[in-house]
């Protein structure tokens, strides 16, 4: 076993997922405690270019037509050989539709330990996992053998996993990928139409504090600047100011975005039912005692009509810069 940390790069239809860069940052933190290198592992077909901006010491690139699109069987076979042969200290996978399909199977096939849902590493290199819906953190020992890990976002910043300097890319031989048990038949694109707020990572939600339909404009401006969509509490939808598809709560949609910015929403349980599980809730409400502050992570009692334009302005400046 060597001391290198491998990161299995996740990409879909020509696009590297953010989590891959985030894992490179995590791998760097771990590598510092083990004294090894950070090595990205990229599987694909004509996909070498994807590796150019990765903040890794090296990239191991396996090219094969059967790896053009993800299928669990092909990935498993390829990675099993590679890990067995190279015996790194640890291999990081994303806790995602791709990483989770591969990591578990490999753990069983190679008889290697697996630690899942790691958000970060402690100073002495112990993986810290988030379990029980984020209510509990578990810090595990890193076993004395090649260890597989799956990672979730939140601990590191993906931007730091990118670098202006292209890493050294080492081409690897693919194993025989015949007789696969799993094959991709086709992709089905998401339906077009009104945005599905339950799938949006950034939601600006407006409540009665917005006062009238014309004022929704300022929320839309903010959403544009931040790259999110506008949703609403029930009174706003009831007034016909926004369509029902944007309603959050008991009688509307349940959303779990990364950021839920509540503008002038009191936080009635019927509303919280729909957004309480958002990752970060930021509440803007002039009433210090509004219950929304009991579920929000950050809050402010500034008048939304003062704050929102100021915030939009700041975001625009950043974009321009």
């Amino acid at each position: 076993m060597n001391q290198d940390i491998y990161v299995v790069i996740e990409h879909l239809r020509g696009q590297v997922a953010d989590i891959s860069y985030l894992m490179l940052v995590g791998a760097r933190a771990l590598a510092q405690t083990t004294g090894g290198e950070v090595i990205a592992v990229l599987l694909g077909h004509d996909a070498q270019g994807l590796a150019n901006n990765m903040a890794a010491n090296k990239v191991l690139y396996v090219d094969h037509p059967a790896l053009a699109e993800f299928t669990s069987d092909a990935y498993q076979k390829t990675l099993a050989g590679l890990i067995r042969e190279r015996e790194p200290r640890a291999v990081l996978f994303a806790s995602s539709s791709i990483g989770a399909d591969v990591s578990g199977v490999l753990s069983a096939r190679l008889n290697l330990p697996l630690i899942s849902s790691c958000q970060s590493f402690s100073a002495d290199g112990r993986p810290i996992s988030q379990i029980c819906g984020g209510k509990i953190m578990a810090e595990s020992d890193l076993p004395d053998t090649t260890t597989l890990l799956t990672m979730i976002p939140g601990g590191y910043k993906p931007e730091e996993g990118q670098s202006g300097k292209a890493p050294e890319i080492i081409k690897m031989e693919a194993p025989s990928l015949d007789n696969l048990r799993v094959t991709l038949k086709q992709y089905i694109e998401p339906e077009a139409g009104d945005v599905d707020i339950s799938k949006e990572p950034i939601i600006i939600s407006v409540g009665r504090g917005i006062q009238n339909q014309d004022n929704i404009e300022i929320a839309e401006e903010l959403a544009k600047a931040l790259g999110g969509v506008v949703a609403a509490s029930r009174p706003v939808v009831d007034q016909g100011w926004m369509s029902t598809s944007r309603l959050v709560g008991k009688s509307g949609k349940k959303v779990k975005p990364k950021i839920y910015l509540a503008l002038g929403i009191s936080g009635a349980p019927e509303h919280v039912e729909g957004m309480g599980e958002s990752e970060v809730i930021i509440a803007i409400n002039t009433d210090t005692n509004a219950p929304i502050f009991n579920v929000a992570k950050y809050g402010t009692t500034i008048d939304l009509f003062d704050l929102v334009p100021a915030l939009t302005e700041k975001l625009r400046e950043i974009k321009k810069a």
Partner: protein
Amino acid sequence: MPFRETFWNIPHWAEIGQYVLGLLTILVFAYGVFRRVKRWRMGKPEKRLDRIGERLWSVLVDAFGQVRTAQDAYAGIMHLTIFWGMVALFIGTALATVDWDVTHLFFGFQFLINGAYILYELILDIFGVLLLIGLGMAVYRRYFIRPSRLQSATAWQKALTQNFDRDDAYALVMLTLITLSGYFVEGLRIAVSKPEWAPWSPVGNALASWFIATGDPTNRTLHLTLWTIHILVAFVLIASIPFTKLFHILAAPLNIFFCTIQPAGTLIAARNDDQIGVKEWRDFSWKQLLDFEACVRCGRCQDNCPAFASGASLSPRNLIISLKTHLWDTSSGHKLHGDVISSKELWACTSCRACVQVCPVYVDHLASIIDMRRYLVNEGEVDALLQKTLANLGRYGNSFGQSERMRAKWTQPIQPVIKDARKEAVEYLWFVGDYASYHVMFSDITRKTAQVFQKADLNFGILYDAERNTGNDVRRVGEEGLFESLVEKNTAAMDKCKYNAIITTDPHSYNTLKNEYSANGNHRLVFHYTELLDQLIASGKLQFNRKLDYRVTYHDPCYLGRYNGIYDAPRRVIRALGCDLIEMPRHGDRAFCCGAGGGKIWMEEQPDVKERPAESRVREAAGMSGVSTLVTTCPKDLVMFRDAVKTAGLEEKILVKDLIELVHEAL
């Protein structure tokens, strides 16, 4: 000597023919009734013969006295005149028959002579006029005023073989014919025989004056012709009773006699056989089938239904008509669920009981609606929100899906600490309820309730985390099994406590605890907090330091008012506070439901709703001049109305408060 030769101008063959026809009529009538009864008996068994005295009393009051019918002025007068007009004429005919064919024929003795006869003629003539007035009112209403409650048959019903319009018209035409032909027969008889007591038959006498000029042989022929018509119409009418709308003459008193006699708040338990709930028409009990047949399509239920008023697809009238139609259309292959009754209709009902309260023939719409819901629940056909709520109720014992350990969180700041009724004996066991325990809007109000109790030196305690939702609305949703399991859990907790009586915040809990939870067969002693406050004020234990001079109006919660008849206690408390109480047009037993009951508050909103019941209600309250506050005594009302005040944009005009907030303020 004033008397009437009964078969004056009637040849013998006609007299004989009349009796033959009469016999035939009776046979047809009997067959018709038999056919109906046979169909009812295809329903599930149910015992309805207890408390005969009370049942007979109901028949007396509402079948003969028609007290309920009379509660609607126009329709009441209309129906009373037709009903009593027909009854009088029927009795008159019967008396004449007895007089002639029994006492005269066999004993040579007549009683309709002299003064008795004159009185008889006069009374019959007057009732005939009343009957015509009633019929005129009916025609005017049905064909000229055309109130919506008589119109809205659905396309489905219209397409069916039963043509209600023809049925309605038939009854009116036949009754009018029989009355008019009767008068003409009388008039012609008087025109020919010119008795000196003729003025005692004012209508007949007036008609006679038209015919006097016509002369005798013609008049005799005319008389015989009209007599024949009169007799034929009468027999056809009688024979057709079991085949037309007129059947309500029999079905209504029967339905009233067999009505649900237990308290309004005690729902009939789900029938415990293989089929849970009603899947097909034969799963209804015979009494429910009788319900459908007794309906006269008057539409009063529809007029009072909050679901219908909100634009939802439910009309209790249409529901009953559909069921009745289906009852005679069972071979067509129409399915009860889906073709005849939609699940949307069933889920629109708030269980407010307004329909049952006003139905003149005692139809119990709710029993049937809930029986059909029981089937849907058993098939898992509930909307996502309701499903989640039921799962929460099953798992946590509350509709909020919160831990039972959070149930008494609201008590934290209260000093002295509220007693744990599981640990020490108390006089009153306070059943707080889900909304009052968990809803953030309510926790402050619940604390105020506790403070008021403490101020009145009440010895009370709560069940803390052992309390569960009482299941009142779970049961009305149709989830009988879950209701039973909630009852078991609450009963187990309560049985471990020592207390004299239960007090509740929530009228829904109040209803089921009082009427559906029984301790060893005995009903528990349960008070709603308004009843208790009323007692405390009366006995001087609760005194106010401040006089509130607000002008308020009061909303009667369905489960306090219509279900349990508590109308006065909260009003006395309001007045004791010094408030000026103004009644809304819809108050007391006609109070308009807030739309939350029967589990509606746990369901997704139906898209066809135009004006939510709660909005209609707060608009009504805000429209009362000078009224600043809408007072309620039900946590669900408070949540619904405060929401509605916002959505209706009435925040400037009206405040919604629980009575306890005012009481607390006045202390």
